[in-house]
């Protein structure tokens, strides 16, 4: 006997009245996309559940991929058996033997009310069978069991399950439109991307590269971070902006203390132009109040005013430690801490203005045609598609 099914429970969307159908369709589509590489899986979608039939695929790998699909509240590995007491008993007994622990509890949910026994009767009968057949020294504990076996009794087939595995929660990615994520390579922006996607918003990324001041390694690092985010959104477009010329022009026309602020204003302008062209409804980034000079409220005010698009800052009120914890969870932390220069760290002024003023910024932006340079940056962007199913030139080596 072996697990042959995964039973998927939907998340918050069960509360969402009319939109329900769109939500479930999107979640179903996203799940299939995330599990695309497991060729033999088949799916059954019912009103409140999704059943994934393993058909011999590795359950460990499938569950690992499933944990990253937003919109899934939880799921369980299950053994599907015909709705007959004997078959249910055998499956339950198998799971108890397989799982570590001394105490157990049987939870039965009888959807098929025509079945001749009530739920408690079924539980008792199955528990009796387990006691009779086990090799272990078992006892029942209905409050804090080590092993909790769930039986879902349905008309034709029933599901016997072990523990509930927590899903990623949130909304299915794509249900809430699309945002453009400003991805630097640091710790915060990938976390911001993760949280944006968690609320059902699809992302594209924008990255500013200033070669030769920034290296291939920095660029590679950003693409690797996107690779980690692919677990939540299988295909992500990345726009790499050639920023060198504009960045050098900024340092030529701006006093050192204001260079950072003006640079961020330019980045925002470019991001908005790209977002408009790519049908993104908002910009998302990893700004957090007070972390660095460019992220004080004064700075945000002086920078944000150059665009009129919503800017989502999912980590704005989080402590650095909380952000780092999330980064570790989603696997981006170790990549983010690699010490390569990015555009924000080169030319770092010794004393940046922590309370920059909008009027001053505007003064420094007069007298040179930054608009044309912004347009050039937008036009010259390189767009990469990073995905789980990207062609792998080196596959033969592994």
């Amino acid at each position, binding site marked *: 006997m072996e697990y042959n099914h995964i039973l998927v429970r939907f998340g918050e969307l069960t509360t969402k009245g009319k939109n329900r159908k769109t939500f479930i369709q999107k979640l179903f589509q996203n799940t299939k996309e995330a599990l695309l590489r497991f060729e033999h899986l088949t799916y059954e979608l019912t009103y409140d559940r999704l059943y994934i039939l393993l058909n011999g695929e590795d359950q460990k790998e499938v569950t690992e991929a499933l944990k990253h699909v937003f919109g899934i509240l939880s799921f369980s590995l299950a053994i599907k058996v015909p709705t007959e007491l004997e078959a249910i008993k055998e499956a339950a007994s198998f799971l108890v033997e397989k799982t570590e622990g001394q105490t157990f509890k049987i939870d039965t949910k009888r959807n098929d009310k025509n079945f001749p026994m009530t739920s408690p009767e079924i539980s008792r009968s199955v528990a009796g069978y387990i006691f009779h057949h086990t090799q272990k020294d078992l006892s029942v504990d209905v409050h804090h069991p080590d092993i909790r076996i769930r039986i879902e009794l349905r008309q034709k087939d029933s599901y016997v399950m072990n523990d509930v595995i927590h899903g990623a929660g949130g909304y299915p990615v794509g249900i809430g439109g699309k945002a453009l994520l400003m991805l630097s390579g640091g710790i915060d922006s990938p976390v911001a991307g993760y949280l944006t996607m968690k609320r059902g918003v699809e992302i594209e990324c924008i990255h500013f590269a200033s070669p030769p001041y920034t*290296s*291939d*390694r920095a660029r*590679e690092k950003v693409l690797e971070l996107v690779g980690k985010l692919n677990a939540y959104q299988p295909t992500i477009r990345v726009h790499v902006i050639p920023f060198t010329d504009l960045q050098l022009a900024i340092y030529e026309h701006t006093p050192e203390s204001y260079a950072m602020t003006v640079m961020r204003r330019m980045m925002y302008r470019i991001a908005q132009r790209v977002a408009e062209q790519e049908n993104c409804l908002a910009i998302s980034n990893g700004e957090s109040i007070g972390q660095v000079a460019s992220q004080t409220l004064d700075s945000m005010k002086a920078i944000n005013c150059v665009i009129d698009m919503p800017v989502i800052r999912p980590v704005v009120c989080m402590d650095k430690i909380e952000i780092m914890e999330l980064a570790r969870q989603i696997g981006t932390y*170790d990549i983010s801490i690699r010490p390569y220069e990015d555009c924000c760290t080169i030319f770092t002024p010794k004393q940046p203005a922590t309370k920059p003023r909008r009027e001053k910024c505007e003064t420094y932006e007069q007298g040179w045609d930054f608009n044309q340079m912004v347009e050039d940056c937008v036009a010259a962007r390189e767009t990469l598609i990073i995905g789980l199913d990207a062609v792998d030139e*080196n596959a*033969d*080596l*592994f």
Partner: protein
Amino acid sequence: MLYLDYAATTPLNPEVGEAYFHLLKTKFANPDSIHGLGLEVEGLMERSRALIASMLGVEAAEIIFTSGASESNNMAIKGVCFQYQSRGRHIITTTVEHSSVYETFKQLENEFGFEVTYLPVDSQGRLDLDVLKQSIRKDTILLSCMAVNNEVGFCLPLEKIKDILKDYPNCHFHVDMVQCLGKLPVHLDGIDLASFSAHKIYGLKGSGILYKKTSCQIKPLICGGQQEFGLRAGTSNAFTNIVLAKTMRLALADLDQKIVHVRHLNQRLRDYFSGLPDCVINTPEDGSPYILNVSMLRYKPEVLTHALEDHEIYISTRSACSTKKLDMSRTLKMMGVSQEVGMSALRISLSHLVTDQDIDRFIQAFNDILRKVKQQRK
């Protein structure tokens, strides 16, 4: 040719060879260089590390590339001793370890003043766990034990050792898994350090890994560079490390079927040898199916080995790392077998590549040799 010395080393899997040759032809950069060429090689090496980690069910940061299991063993054992010597200077191993573990303990005992307990085994290779319980102390900082003995093939009770170690959080657990990987299931939970070799699983010579749990710290043996998390300085043997993932993947593929097949071959050989007069089978029934150690009493094992060689059949007398010594195998000696049994041991080691016809051929040749080669007088 019939090769039956797979515990000594294995032939290179042609697919691994192709990947390696391709790398040699197309790339050369140092993975630590900051330019794009280096970056590419580094990326491939890290991808290999991540794949190996996932095959072993651990984190990529817990996989250290080494030159092979002897280095991994030295690195783990000395690394832990030098790191934690302020917590205690008592360490434990068994009497039947591979020489790269055994001699390392001897060195720590004789040159560095550590106190060592050597756990004995019985005639079936069973470790005396009572001795372990009696000798382990609060200041024991390391226990090193192999998973499968390389000369005789008996398995050591890792799970029971783990249970005992639960009460001794200061004691790190190192396991030499060389004869286990690609042959038997590997479980790393409850283990702090584990050594693996590539050339025993159809990979390249000079290639191995040390698994080191993140929570376990070790002092490096080779200082002077950031490579391998600062634990093994020196320009990385990148291509070798890159193809190790493929080596492992191929070795672990269809492992269940391979084991079933090898068990079958092993049983045939057992049946054959148990029918021979003056033959003692040293490998216990519950040992690794990949190794069969037998003693042909009053035959010189070297003579039988060379006679088999005339039939182009290759087996060995003991671990290849100790053949230059003349007395009997340490493992057999420690199992307490008689001088007669110990001095006449042969090791046949199997692979899934061996066929039923190969076993027929071996039996035929061996019968032929026994007819011709004279037994020594009693």
